């Protein structure tokens, strides 16, 4: 770990003031940042400790939604009675991630910003455009079984590792950001950026932008499912995951909100897939068509080719489960 200056922020304004350079990082749970700092994959010159800020609450909003403070831990968010009742897919996604110890530390804001687990990003002996722009991507022709099949570029095929963000994307979450120019909100769908030729830039955040909360709209209803396929049944990142909010009325799908993990550089959502499902009667053929649309542009890199059929099967399983007549 490189040395750094350490500042403990007393309030949000101070935190934003202390930030403002590429060299500065906010630290809260630190579970991913410190890991990367130990490996010197990240080497901020200054850490602004935001753990004492008043961002740890979950409040109900006027429109029936929730405002989740950026410092709410993954554990607290998953266990929150309101989330369990109204947004169960979010609880499920959180509980499917990491370990008990890590969920107790990891925060809502930090989870959105966690970095890819691409081996080459972690290995300083290898080229990686995300870690060292311009050095190349070793993953394309390397060990890539965990990496992306959608939204990749020739410069980067990393995946975003979060489970939480996948559920939030399916739930139409918005990110509340405090910056030098005040507060703003960004839809989670617009929060992340595709790698293109600048894979080191992952979000729309500026250096002095601090995530202060995530906003969930009123409960989406429907059947909510989070299905995660991974190497171990616990404490492993998703090879493929699906967050689904599905409603069936009179034998026809009336609502379909689907987001995918493990497939792309951001929690993946495809409006065309949802459009194909809404208004149609559930059937294996329909689910197959949905998968065709989702995977039309999918590109395997050898080691991760299996994700294409795996995604198809996983999506079909989720849609089948979500549209089954209740017992």
């Amino acid at each position, binding site marked *: *770990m490189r040395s750094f200056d350490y500042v403990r922020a007393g309030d949000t304004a101070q935190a934003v003031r202390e930030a403002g350079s590429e060299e500065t990082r906010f630290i809260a749970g630190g579970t991913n940042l410190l890991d990367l700092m130990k490996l*010197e994959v990240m080497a901020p010159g200054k850490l602004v400790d935001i753990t004492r800020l008043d961002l740890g609450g979950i409040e109900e909003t006027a429109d029936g939604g929730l405002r989740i403070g950026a410092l709410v831990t993954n554990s607290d968010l998953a266990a929150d009675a309101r989330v369990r009742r109204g947004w169960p897919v979010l609880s499920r996604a959180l509980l499917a991630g990491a370990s008990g110890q890590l969920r107790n530390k990891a925060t809502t804001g930090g989870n959105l910003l966690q970095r890819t*687990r691409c*081996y080459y990003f*972690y*290995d300083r*002996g290898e080229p990686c455009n995300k870690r060292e722009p311009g050095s190349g991507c070793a993953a394309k022709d*390397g*060990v890539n*079984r965990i990496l992306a099949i959608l939204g990749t570029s020739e410069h980067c095929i990393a995946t975003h590792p979060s489970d939480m963000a996948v559920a939030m994307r399916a739930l139409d979450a918005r990110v509340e950001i405090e910056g030098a120019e005040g507060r703003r909100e960004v839809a989670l769908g617009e929060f992340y950026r595709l790698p293109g030729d600048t894979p080191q830039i992952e979000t729309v955040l500026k250096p002095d932008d601090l995530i202060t909360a995530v906003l969930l709209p009123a409960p989406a209803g429907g059947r909510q499912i989070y299905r995660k*396929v991974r*190497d*171990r*049944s*616990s*404490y*492993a990142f998703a090879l493929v995951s699906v967050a689904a909010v599905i409603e069936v009325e009179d034998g026809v799908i009336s609502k379909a909100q689907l987001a995918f993990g493990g497939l792309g550089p951001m929690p993946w959502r495809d409006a065309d897939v949802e459009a194909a499902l809404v208004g149609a009667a559930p059937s294996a053929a329909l689910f197959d068509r949905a998968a065709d649309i989702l995977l039309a542009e999918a590109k395997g890199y050898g080691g991760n*080719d*299996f994700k294409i*059929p*795996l995604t198809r*099967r*996983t999506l079909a*399983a989720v849609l089948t489960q979500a549209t089954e007549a209740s017992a």
Partner: protein
Amino acid sequence: MRNGSIINVSRRALLGGIGAGGFVLAVGLPRPGRAQEEEPEFGRDAMPNGWRDDPNIFIAIAPDGIVTVTCHRSEMGQGVRTSIAMVVADELGAEWENVRVDQAPGLEEKYGNQDTDGSRSLRHFFMPMRRAGAAARTMLEQAAADEWGVDVSEVKAEGHMVGHAGSGKSLGYGELAAAAMDLEVPARDSLVLKDPSEFRYIGTSKIGLVDNMDITTGSTTYGIDVKRDGMLYAVVARPPVYGGRVASYDDSAALAIEGVEKVVKIDASDFPTEFAPLGGVAVIAKNTYLAMKGRDALTIEWEEGPNADYDSAAYHEELTQAAASREGKVIRDEGDFDGAIGLADQVVDAEYYIPHLAQAPMEPPAAVVEIKDGRAEAWACTQAPQVTRLRLAERLGLAEENVTVNVTLLGGGFGRKSKPDFVLEAGILSQAMDGTPVKLTWSREDDIQHGYYHTVSVEKMQAGLDADGKPTAWLHRTAAPTIGSIFAPDPMQKLPFELGMGLLNMPLAIENIRAENPQAAAHVRIGWYRSVSNIPHAFAIQSFVSELAHAAGRDPKDYLLEVIGPARQIDPTNQGDVWNYGENPDAYPIDTGRMAAVVEAAAEGIEWGRDMQEGRGLGIAGHYSFVSYVAVAAEVEVVDGQVVVPRVSIAIDCGANVNPDRIRSQMEGAVIMGVGQALMTEVTFADGRAQQANFDTYLVPRMDAAPKRIDVHIVGSDAAYDRPLGGVGEPGLPPVVPAITNAIFAATGQRIRQLPIADQLRS
């Protein structure tokens, strides 16, 4: 749920008079000179420095009656400190609450062999320790008899005191200790060992580990916990490729870090590297963190050496080609394989692959060495303290008697800590600091990337079946780099002890058998990993038997029993196994009756033959290793390509039970480690470098992967205590993987021939 049973299977008397004719192989280590014409020695007699049973070495009794047993074997979770103490205490007639355990330093001339490996601590030291306890008991009785002026036959030691029935007098062990210690140790052949019916600890459960309290309250000292006054801390940047060397390095940035004391180049050893450090550049600092920071700041140019292109996927192909050829050395040839295969009604072929594995004990290697007045003292989590002492003395240029190796508790070993390279690194660095104590620690990344790996292997099998599905011809070609490559110029061929791990000595009731061993070069540092070559051999043989059962349209368990054949005693030397785990084939023949009994017990334990739901299946495998018999029956469920192992039944016959709790615990641990090997665990190499670094990529089973139900069946626990014991620490592992993959076949019709399973059932 932990169920189990102790099954008493009456044992046929061991057959006598089987021709011996074995010889002993000491792997790699120098052994005391022995003239060729001498009678061959076996077992404990054949180990370097043999064994001792002198009570004065192992037992001390304080005036307050506290009995201290010195354990000369390393404790790594197998419970040896407890088991050895149980044995001594029982024969001594000591009360368990007054027994303490001390750990011996590495000093084989005093204690006998201390290499804690090969599943042989109790196998080799049960009897010597009994005798030590009995001798001390006899001495206490004599001291009491002398005190009272009566004949020793009138007194009796038990319950931590000696009593005289005639007078009603009694004296506690503490009161007698001083006088007893002055007496001569009674002659070995005069000792009267207890009748097993009198045992109070041996063979009983719920004794608990002697280190219970320290473990649960966090006050144990492992190698990584040792602290000495003025101690400095070190880490080493090792060549990323096995056999690489430092071409040049720049340490200016490292030395600029405050707290970094010194940077030391450690010379790499030439091949064969044996237990020598890999070389590299070490950073010594005021704490481990600064040392690691210093290491990160080093700029090193490596000369990568001959293994820079090693790629484990390409090497798999190479092994496959080697296994396809008939050029291999013939290691077993009975009957007429070629003729029989030509006449077969059906020929079955299969090839099995096992990847490199890293032991990855929870405590990575760590040691402290300090040198003062020409004497070096080490504290280390080592499985081999005497070898450590010898190699440390050589490397530091000291006389052996000027080197002391203290053995800490080991946070797991699994074979990794049999190799003292890490202790040597600490010694070299202490010497470079003029003797200042230096703690050398390996990070997890160091451990997984610079290990002594389990060998990679291709096992090619071919069999011919007759019209009834009975195997008439059997070919086994094994291609794998040998552990011998670290001890000598790479012999490219498996050593007898590797072939004797479940390949040559698998009992097969088949007439025409041929086994061959093509050449295979080592490109990484190969070393023992729990169960060693038994892992690939059991996987191949036990999978293949199940494949043959399928080809024959037979039940896999019935077929396995038929292949094992009728109950008989086999001299392993007749199958080409001249090693036999170092044991005398007269005392340790292969007993197919015992093999069949564990298969039956494991099958019964899983309720073999019951109806299974869709996606579920049962599999079975049996394997003989470390002169014990183990069979495993596993139930699997495959959902979406994901394998779950909900239930396993494991049966072991290791002869008489000294410490049944430890047997159970070792079997449970072996089952779960095996689940990991089947499903997820492997180290791969590209450009000569290990591609895994920590537990995020080197996958070992977590609690969720453990079968929710493991039933351990201890078969043959009524075996007499004067009969030879079998091993316990390792034999549980080999049959686990094939039991699981056989169950997967039963569940899905998909045959796993390459480990780990990973994505194979997903696409």
